[in-house]
C-alpha cells in the first residue's frame, strides 16, 4: 500500500515535471520563432532608398516636321499627264517644269480656230473685191452695204484673233506645271498617261518659309520653363544612318490652347483623375537640311532651385486633400528587428510625371520609402521587407 502510494506520487511528479518542461519548451520555441511566425503574416512591401536632390523638370515631346507653308498644284486644264519630270522629295527651283501635259486636243482646237481665221480673211478679201466693184459701178446702196459687211468681218477677225491668242497662251501656260517657288516635292499624285483625278497633281513645300513642328506640353511646364512666343528652343534631329543626332534651333511661333489630358494617378489614389491643362507649342524651324517629315524631339530640362528628397510618384498616396508617403521605420524589437510603416505627410511638394520632391526635413539619410504593399497600409503597421 505504502509502495503504491509512493509510485503514484512519483508518477504525479513525472507528469508535473513533463508539464513544466513543456511549458518552458513552448516558451522557448515562441521566443525564438515568434518573430518568424509573425512576419510571415505581415504585408509585404517593396521599398526604395530615397534619393536626395532637386527635382528636374523635363519638357519632352516630339513631332513630325511639316513645311510651314505648302502649296497644292492642280492640273490647270484637266489634261492628260504626258510626262512627270520630278520625283517625290526632289528639290525644285522656282520656274522649274514639274509635269508636262498632253495638249494635242488644245492644239487641234487652235488649228481649227486658225483655219477659221483664214476663212474669215478670205471672206474679207472677197468683200473688198465686191466693194471695189460696187464703187466702180456707182451703186451707192450696195457700196454702203458692203462697207458694213466688211466692218462686221473685221470685228469677227479680231475676235477670232483674240480667241487664237487666248488659246495659244493657254496652251503655253497649261501644257506644263511649273514650280511657283523654291521648294520640295512633297507629294506626287500625277500619273503619266492619266488625266487628273481632280485633286492636285503635286504638293510642293515652300522652302523659303521654313518648317514647323507642333508639340503638346503641359501648361504648367510651359509656364515653369518661361516659354513665350519668339523664345528660341533647342531641338534634336534624329540620327540619320551613321550621323549622330544633331541639335537644331527652333523659335516658338505660337502657343495655343488644346484639350486637357487626364493625369495618371497611383492605383489607390481614388477620386476622379485630375485634368491637366495642355498647350500646343508651334515651333518654327529654319534649317537647310530639313526636308519635312522628320521626327524631331524636344528635351528641355530645368532643375528646381529647391532641394529635397526625390520620391517616385507611385509611393505618394492621396486621401482627400492630404498627401502622404510611407517610410520604413526600423525598431530594435525585443526578439529581432521590427519594421514598421510610418506615415509621412507631404503637404508641400513639387512633382513631375515621375517624381515628387518632398521637403528635406521629412526624411533622414538612408531611409527607405515604401513603393507598394501587398495590403493597404496604415500608420504603424508592421511590414515585411521584400
Amino acid at each position: 500500500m505504502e509502495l503504491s502510494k509512493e509510485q503514484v506520487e512519483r508518477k504525479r511528479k513525472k507528469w508535473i515535471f513533463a508539464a513544466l518542461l513543456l511549458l518552458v519548451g513552448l516558451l522557448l520555441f515562441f521566443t525564438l520563432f515568434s518573430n518568424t511566425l509573425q512576419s510571415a503574416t505581415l504585408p509585404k512591401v517593396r521599398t526604395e532608398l530615397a534619393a536626395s536632390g532637386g527635382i528636374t523638370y523635363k519638357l519632352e515631346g516630339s513631332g513630325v516636321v511639316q513645311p510651314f507653308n505648302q502649296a497644292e498644284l492642280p492640273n490647270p486644264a484637266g489634261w492628260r499627264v504626258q510626262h512627270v519630270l520630278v520625283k517625290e522629295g526632289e528639290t525644285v527651283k522656282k520656274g522649274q517644269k514639274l509635269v508636262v501635259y498632253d495638249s494635242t486636243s488644245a492644239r487641234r482646237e487652235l488649228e481649227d480656230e486658225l483655219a477659221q481665221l483664214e476663212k474669215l480673211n478670205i471672206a474679207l478679201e472677197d468683200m473688198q473685191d465686191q466693194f471695189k466693184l460696187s464703187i466702180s459701178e456707182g451703186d451707192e446702196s450696195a457700196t454702203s452695204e458692203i462697207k458694213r459687211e466688211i466692218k462686221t468681218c473685221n470685228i469677227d477677225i479680231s475676235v477670232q484673233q483674240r480667241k487664237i491668242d487666248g488659246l495659244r497662251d493657254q496652251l503655253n501656260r497649261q501644257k506644263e506645271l511649273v514650280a511657283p517657288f523654291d521648294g520640295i516635292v512633297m507629294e506626287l499624285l500625277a500619273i503619266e498617261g492619266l488625266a487628273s483625278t481632280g485633286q492636285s497633281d503635286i504638293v510642293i513645300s515652300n522652302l523659303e518659309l521654313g518648317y514647323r513642328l507642333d508639340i503638346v506640353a503641359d501648361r504648367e511646364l510651359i509656364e515653369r520653363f518661361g516659354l513665350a512666343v519668339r523664345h528660341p528652343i533647342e531641338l534634336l534631329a534624329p540620327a540619320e544612318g551613321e550621323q549622330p543626332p544633331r541639335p537644331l534651333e527652333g523659335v516658338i511661333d505660337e502657343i495655343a490652347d488644346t484639350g486637357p489630358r487626364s493625369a495618371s494617378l497611383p492605383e489607390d489614389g481614388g477620386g476622379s483623375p485630375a485634368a491637366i491643362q495642355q498647350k500646343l507649342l508651334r515651333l518654327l524651324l529654319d534649317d537647310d537640311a530639313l526636308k519635312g517629315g522628320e521626327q524631331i524631339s524636344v528635351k528641355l530640362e530645368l532643375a528646381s532651385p529647391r532641394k529635397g528628397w526625390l520620391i517616385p510618384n507611385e509611393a505618394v498616396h492621396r486621401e482627400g486633400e492630404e498627401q502622404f508617403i510611407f517610410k520604413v521605420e526600423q525598431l530594435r524589437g525585443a526578439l529581432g528587428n521590427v519594421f514598421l510603416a510610418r506615415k509621412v505627410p507631404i503637404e508641400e511638394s513639387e512633382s513631375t510625371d515621375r517624381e515628387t520632391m518632398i521637403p528635406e526635413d521629412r526624411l533622414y539619410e538612408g531611409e527607405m520609402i515604401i513603393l507598394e504593399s501587398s495590403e493597404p497600409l496604415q500608420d504603424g503597421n508592421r511590414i515585411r521587407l521584400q
Partner: protein
Amino acid sequence: MRVMTTIQKGLLTAFMVMIGLVLLFPIMITFTNSLMAGQELRINYGVIGKLTDVTSTGAETFINLKWLPDKVTLEQYGELLVHSPYYLLLFWNSVGLVVPIIIGQTVVAALAAYAFAKLKFRGRDSLFLVYLLTMLMPFQVTLVPNYIMADKLGLLHTSGAVILPGVFAAFGVFMLRQFMLHIPYAYIEAAKIDGAGHLRTFLTVILPMVKPGLAALVILLFVDNWNMVEQPLIFIDNPMKQPLSVFLSRLSGEWDTVFAASMLYMSPMVLLFLYAETYFIEGVQLSGIKG
C-alpha cells in the same frame, strides 16, 4: 484525541471547501477568462475604466465577473506568444533574475546555516542576531543603501543590482538554520569520528538531511523573487531588461492578452509548487516557518 462527530466533520469540511474556493477563485477566474476573446473581455470589463469616473452614478461601477467564456478560444495565447515578443523576452528576463538568486542564495544559505547551526565559534549568536535583523527590516529600509551600493559597484541598471542583494538575503540562512538545528549533533560527531572534515560532513551528512528544507527554500525563493516588483523597478531602468512581474503590473486594460499573460506568468510557480509540494510541506513544518 476527542472523537469528532459527523456533524462536526461535515461542518469542518464545508468550511475548508469554502476557504479553498475563496483561495482558488482568482486563479480559476483568470484561467477561464484566459480562454475568452479580447472582444468578449472588453465588453465585460470595459466598465473598469469608468470606475474612476466621478460623474458616473454607482450603477455601472459594478463589474460582472464572467465565469464561462461564450466561446472558448486560445486567441489570447496566440496573440501573446506570436505577436507579443516583448512578453516572452521579459519572461526570460524573469528567469534570468530568479534562477541565479535561487542558486546563489541556496548555496550561500546552506553554508551559512551550517555554520550558524553546527559550528561553535565566539559571537555566533550575536552575529546571527544581526543577520536576523536585516531580515526583519522591510525591504524599503535597505532600499537606499542598496541603491547606493549598486551604484558604487557599477551594477546599477544591470540585473546584478537585483541578483546580488537577492543572493545574500538573510531569509534562506534563517530558514535552513532552523532546519539544521533539528538535526542531532550526534550525526556530525559520528561523521567526525569517521574522519570527515567539515566540508564532507556538510555535503554528505547534512545536505541530504535538509533536502525538504532546500526544496521549501527553493519554492519560497522562487515565489518571492518571481513576484518581486520594486527591486527591478528601481534598480533596472531599461524596460527591456525588467522582469515579467513589472510588465504584468502595467498590463491592465490590455484585454487581448492580460489573462493569458497572467496564466503563463503563474504557471511555472504552480508547477514548481506541485512538483515539490511534499518536500515543501515537510520543510515548512520542520523548520517551523510559515510560507
